[in-house]
């Protein structure tokens, strides 16, 4: 959707710059003239929200790093000193810790959008895979960040997760020792996690640039899943249309985020992490942060340690090959009645896995984890490959413009998928 650049430098200095390093042209083409489908709904605002959250996390994180001490004997108290003595340190720290959760809320909604509207399908496979890489980087960053306050959950979470690598035959123990920088989770582990926690966000920023680049080559998907046919009829320029809509969504998102930061800042955390790490005392239940719970449930569903680890990684790896698992040519679930039901079942499955991840791994919880783990994989490995072959999709609208204007044409869009027809383009 990149097309021909329509940028015309107005001022002398802009002309001078344009012929040397066309940075203004890049900004103009990417954020002003860039054509966006006119029927995008609010689920398409999470990309912008995620960029905002990355900036929030980097800014608050850099400030926190100025006051934090990555030392096993001092880390806990240095975080408390940030909370007590640093001017607005409590604000920086709560913004950062809740920011991680809201980053994940946004990324899960963003992925949910992609899964529902088939945004991973050709020609957006690379865009999608870059997204999976971003998700992995986020998980690594969040995991290491949670270790830094050096509370009980930090320590024991780090112990459990790093120990997973010991399941691999032959090289397992070596990998774990290498991760720890010793023979247990200790000061060297904390030091390297701090270093990596500082590095990874900039890798996220780098991959984000590739992700946005790939997006601007293929153009955005849209709720109908029908590609743009006419820029004039099907799209609106990014500015002001997407700019103002994304701004509204960002501020609304920030309001929810602020509610948590200022009123219930510890709701998403765990009380045990206000107890300093103690290798001699194991908490009653070691529970990861909420955003890891579904994967934690998959890990514990398998009685065999190596099997659990492999299955957990497979749960993410399966996303990377999703573009080739889904055999349907129709992108949007709005036009796929059967797949759509499977999709909602998959959503319920994910929530159930999240709940099971927070339960102790015993009794009925293990059985349920196994059932929902099977359902999780069934969606990707059975439902999506087969449905594409057997399902009869609803009739797609001829174009984005038709899907938007069908409703105003007063019932002429009866054959058009209900979802698209019911979305006036003012929601675009």
């Amino acid at each position, binding site marked *: 959707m990149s097309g021909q650049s329509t940028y015309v430098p107005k001022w002398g200095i802009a002309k001078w710059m344009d012929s040397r390093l066309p940075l203004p042209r890049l900004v103009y083409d990417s954020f002003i003239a860039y054509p966006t489908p006119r029927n995008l709904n609010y689920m398409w605002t999470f990309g912008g929200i995620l960029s905002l959250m990355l900036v929030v996390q980097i800014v608050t994180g850099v400030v926190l790093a100025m006051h934090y001490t990555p030392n096993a004997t001092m880390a806990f108290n240095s975080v408390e000193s940030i909370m007590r003595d640093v001017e607005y340190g409590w604000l920086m720290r709560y913004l950062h810790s809740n920011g991680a959760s809201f980053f994940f809320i946004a990324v899960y909604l963003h992925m949910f959008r992609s899964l529902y509207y088939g945004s991973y399908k050709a020609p957006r496979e690379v865009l999608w895979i870059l997204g999976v890489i971003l998700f992995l980087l986020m998980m690594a960053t969040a995991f290491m960040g949670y270790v830094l306050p050096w509370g009980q959950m930090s320590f024991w979470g780090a112990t459990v997760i790093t120990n997973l690598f010991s399941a691999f035959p032959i090289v397992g123990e070596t990998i774990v020792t290498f991760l720890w920088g010793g023979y247990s989770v200790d000061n060297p582990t904390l030091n390297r996690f701090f270093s990596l926690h500082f590095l990874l966000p900039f890798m996220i920023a780098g991959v984000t640039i590739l992700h946005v680049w790939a997006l601007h080559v293929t153009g955005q998907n849209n709720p109908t899943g029908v590609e743009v046919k006419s820029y004039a009829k099907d799209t609106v320029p990014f500015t002001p249309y997407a700019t103002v809509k994304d*701004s509204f969504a960002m501020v609304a998102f920030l309001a929810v985020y*602020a509610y948590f930061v200022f009123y*219930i800042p510890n709701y998403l955390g765990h009380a045990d992490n206000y107890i300093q790490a103690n290798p001699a005392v194991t908490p*009653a*239940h070691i529970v990861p*942060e909420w955003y890891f719970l579904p994967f934690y449930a998959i890990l514990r569903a398998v009685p065999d340690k190596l099997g659990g680890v492999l299955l957990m990684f497979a749960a993410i790896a399966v996303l990377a090959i999703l573009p080739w698992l889904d055999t349907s040519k129709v992108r949007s679930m709005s036009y796929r009645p059967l797949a759509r039901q499977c999709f909602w079942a998959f959503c319920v499955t994910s929530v159930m896995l999240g709940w099971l991840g927070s339960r102790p791994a015993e009794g009925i919880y293990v059985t349920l984890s196994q059932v929902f783990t099977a359902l999780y994989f069934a969606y990707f490995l059975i439902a999506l490959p087969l449905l594409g072959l057997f399902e009869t999709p609803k009739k797609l609208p001829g174009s984005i413009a038709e899907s938007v204007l069908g409703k*105003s044409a007063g019932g002429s869009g009866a054959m058009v998928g209900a979802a698209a027809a019911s*979305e006036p*383009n003012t929601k675009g």
Partner: protein
Amino acid sequence: MNFLRTTLAAAALALASAGVLIAPAHAAGGETKPPAYDWTFNGPFGTFDRAQLQRGYKVYREVCSACHAMSLVRFRNLSQPGGPEFSEAQIRALAAEFKIQDGPNEQGEMFERPGRPADAFPKPFPNEQAARAANNGAYPYDLSVMAKARNYERGFPLFLLDILTQYQEGGPDYIKALLTGYEDPPAGVELQPGQNWNKYKPGNIFSMPNVLNDGQVEYPKGVDGKPQVPETARQYAADVTTFLMWAAEPHMEARKRIGFQTLVFLILFAGLLYFTKKKIWGRLPDHAPSGAH
């Protein structure tokens, strides 16, 4: 409709997955759930009661501090806004009542000097081993962040409602209940020396004995010569728990105040942006069959 449903479902999904994390800090069976207490610091406009914080400090100093350190709290914190707000002169006098080890001096020796506002509360024991040796092997934990380091499981669907009701007081509720939750053990339960029965403690066996008794701590008197609040164990527990909550979250009042300002701003700003967006999108020749623009 579909859009609305999608969004609602998405929100429910996020909310549900977000909420599931409220996993038990204490899940051992048998304990009673602590009752929710009407704290002054509950809710979006909750603040600390200065007089209560000052009484709570008195209880901590006269009772708890015999065994429990609060090494992250400094005397100067007691005069900061949003806390007990003793005057600076009071804090100087108060700190000077404590002997603080300092040094080494020029002769290389450690020495004791009167406390200063910048000093942390002195610890009752020099190290964990000394504390255990004096307490039947049990370690009295540092209380600096205790009010945030304890919680109890709320269960479904309460944990979701807690987002809206802003219930954040699991720690204080648990601590207050614990302090007043001592009972005789049920028939047939034989307690070892150093063990106590507490109906709120997970597993019910608690190393810490009942330390709060009616009339034990003298409270400031009103003009009529009577204490302004009852000198009861229940009152002591509420007061010292409030003090612990402040110690764990000394900037809570500023947080809630700034939070209100921030939310008012963000909601108004979001409203303005929403109408701006409607206006701008309204410019599109939506209903023109040609769609030309």
